[in-house]
């Protein structure tokens, strides 16, 4: 089977991390975001993944060659010269997608969940129509576009954008499976699959919704990245508790790379991911944070709801909170307070940031 992943542009919402590397390669819970998807797709029998990208990146290409080797699958990059929306990239990759007559997957690259790809194939074959989309329940449907469908079969009636009165609590989760015949509906021009293609398919009775079990998060921006991390670690607790770190000084779900070093008298967790080669010195308190590869957190610092970029250094007695994001190779001097700071790569911070601010 084949899958097309809508990678798109530079990932501006996840700046400053995406200033240093393409978003699919940013580690989420110690694994590149894209690798979570690739591994789940291969598990479901996918042997060819097409990445729809709107920029060319040697780093991304190199990483994909490595993943091809590692996973034993084929990975192609389909490069759009101008932005084509969420449907146009399918038309661009038409030749690759029609190499066989099997259904193919399409997914947004920002989504994290317990990927239900095997269930999707079963569901799709069961109803036998042109397309299936995964939906997930949300608490406040009025913020999203919702999907109204038949409870028994999942057949979609209609889509309602930001409903003011309750019609449904299910939203599009950004994961689809289609028959190749779908491609007849799409032209090679900027098109939104959600707004222009799906409503027509629903009218034709060709689109069905499968409800997702378990957690789901769009991790395209730092705040949601952290929320998604909490959900992922909780899911890891249920499925592979042995992968989580425990012991004195560790609270709740904490993921620590084996090459990381943690000092004495620290309290880490709940909901912390510590990357490869990270050094956490003595007496540090970390909760609800991702510390990326090669960083150092010096003694007695306190971190909550932060992402610390690769090879950054956080000084002693630093306090960072409220979705502070450090880009790559940032230095935070001793005793500073960062509240909601977004710090661009290679910066050295010498003054506190008491209110949320971008530091350039």
């Amino acid at each position, binding site marked *: 089977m084949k899958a097309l992943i809508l990678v798109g542009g530079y990932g501006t919402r996840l700046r400053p991390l995406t200033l240093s590397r393409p978003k699919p390669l940013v580690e989420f819970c110690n694994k590149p975001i894209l690798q979570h998807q690739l591994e789940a797709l291969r598990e479901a029998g996918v042997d060819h993944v097409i990445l729809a990208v709107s920029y060319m990146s040697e780093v991304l290409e190199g990483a994909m060659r490595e993943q091809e080797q590692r996973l034993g699958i084929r990975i192609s990059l389909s490069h759009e010269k101008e932005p084509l929306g969420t449907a146009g990239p399918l038309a661009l990759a038409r030749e690759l997608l029609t190499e066989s007559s099997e259904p193919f997957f399409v997914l947004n690259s920002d989504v994290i969940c317990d990927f239900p790809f095997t269930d999707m194939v079963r569901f799709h074959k069961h109803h036998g129509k042109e397309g299936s989309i995964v939906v997930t329940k949300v608490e406040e449907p009025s913020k999203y576009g919702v999907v109204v469908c038949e409870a028994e079969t999942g057949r979609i009636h209609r889509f309602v954008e930001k409903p003011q009165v309750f019609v449904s609590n299910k939203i599009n989760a950004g994961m689809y499976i289609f028959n190749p015949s779908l491609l007849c509906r799409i032209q090679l021009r900027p098109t939104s699959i959600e707004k222009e293609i799906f409503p027509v398919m629903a009218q034709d009775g060709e689109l069905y919704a499968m409800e997702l079990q378990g957690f789901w998060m769009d991790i395209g921006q730092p705040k949601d990245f952290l929320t998604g991390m909490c959900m992922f670690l909780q899911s890891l607790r249920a499925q592979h508790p042995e992968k989580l770190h425990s012991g004195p000084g560790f609270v709740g779900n904490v993921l620590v790379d084996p090459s990381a070093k943690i000092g004495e*008298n620290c309290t880490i967790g709940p909901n912390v991911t510590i990357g490869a080669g990270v050094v956490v010195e*003595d*007496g540090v*308190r970390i909760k609800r944070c991702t510390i990326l590869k090669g960083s150092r957190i010096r*003694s*007695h610092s*306190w971190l*909550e709801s932060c992402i610390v970029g690769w090879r950054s250094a956080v000084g*002693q*007695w630093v*306090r960072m*909170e409220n979705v502070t994001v450090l880009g790559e190779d940032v230095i935070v001097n001793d*005793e500073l*307070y960062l509240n909601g700071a977004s710090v661009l790569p290679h910066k050295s911070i010498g003054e506190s940031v*008491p209110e949320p601010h971008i530091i350039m």
Partner: protein
Amino acid sequence: MIQHHIEACAKVPNMKEILLVGFYQPNEALSRFLVSAQQEFKIPIRYLQEYAALGTGGGIYHFRDQILSGGPEAFFVLNADVCSEFPLPEMLAFQQQRGDAHSFVMLGTTANRKQSLNYGCIVANTETCEVLHYVEKPSTFISEIINCGIYLFTPAIFQHIGKVFQKNQQELLLEEGSNGWQRAEVIRLEQDVFTALAGCGKLYVYKTDSFWSQIKSAGSAIYANRLYLSQYSQRHPERLARNSPEGPSIRGNVYIHPTASVDRSAVLGPNVSIGKGVTVGAGVRVRESIILHGALLQDHTCVLNSIVGWDSTIGRWARVEGTPSDPNPNDPYAKIDSETLFRDGRLTPSITILGCNVTIPAEAVILNSIVLPHKELSRSFKNQIIL
């Protein structure tokens, strides 16, 4: 604050007695302080309570018999709300050099032009140092020499204050519909006495370049603390903490009371005072702060630009931080601005002050805030007065 005044007075040869004059109701803490200060400095010290706030001149006039008992040739008058090197022997020597045993001496220092308007301004004869003109808080620039609120008087000063008293009494009699609250006894040394004495060959200014600052608010206490610590480093280095293998890391000038318990992994300074019976836990950082007696700083706390009140507790990994309000460091004559708490309806960022017996929970941050006594906080606060 006042122990520094007492220490300076006790060092003056032939000092017989120290009188504290105030409108403040005496209490146990004050009595305890008087007993221990008398033992430490081996000099009689008494507190005299005014029956009403009588102003800077009225207080000493009211207690003139107490002041003159024992027939002193001269006496010093010091305002309590200043910190200074207190060059009292120099003022005495200066008076004797003048050759006039009945002249009065005020301590003056240099301010910048703008800030001089907040003080009493002195115009003096450059050779004789006689005060030619004196104005309290003028609205336009008069002089860069300002009054430090430290004086050397002879008993003759009471004749001059007495004249003001009589004048006040006559004016009150003449004034119709007096509301009864004005008193002839309320006399201000600055406006009522010095302005009249200026140019009469009686009042002289002794100018000092040593440190001096007003302590009008708790916010200036951190600056005053720094000035006194720097004085200690020059005059009494033995009073300051030093780095040792068993003790905490010391950076710059730090005072630690001998009864305080400080973990060796703590890092203190510069400009930190740790009071009696204070406990400082492992991995604590304190900079530019005053920790008053009985306070407890738990492990990994960070205290910057703050005053931690008596018996307060700061939980693990909490951060207590203020914004320094120091005088302009590039102007040698700059003084600390008498801060207004609010500007344009907003609390101006200043040092953080915790009243006595305040509890800060673990991992909270208290930023630019004032916390009233006996508060047990349950979360973080920023830029607030917590009543």
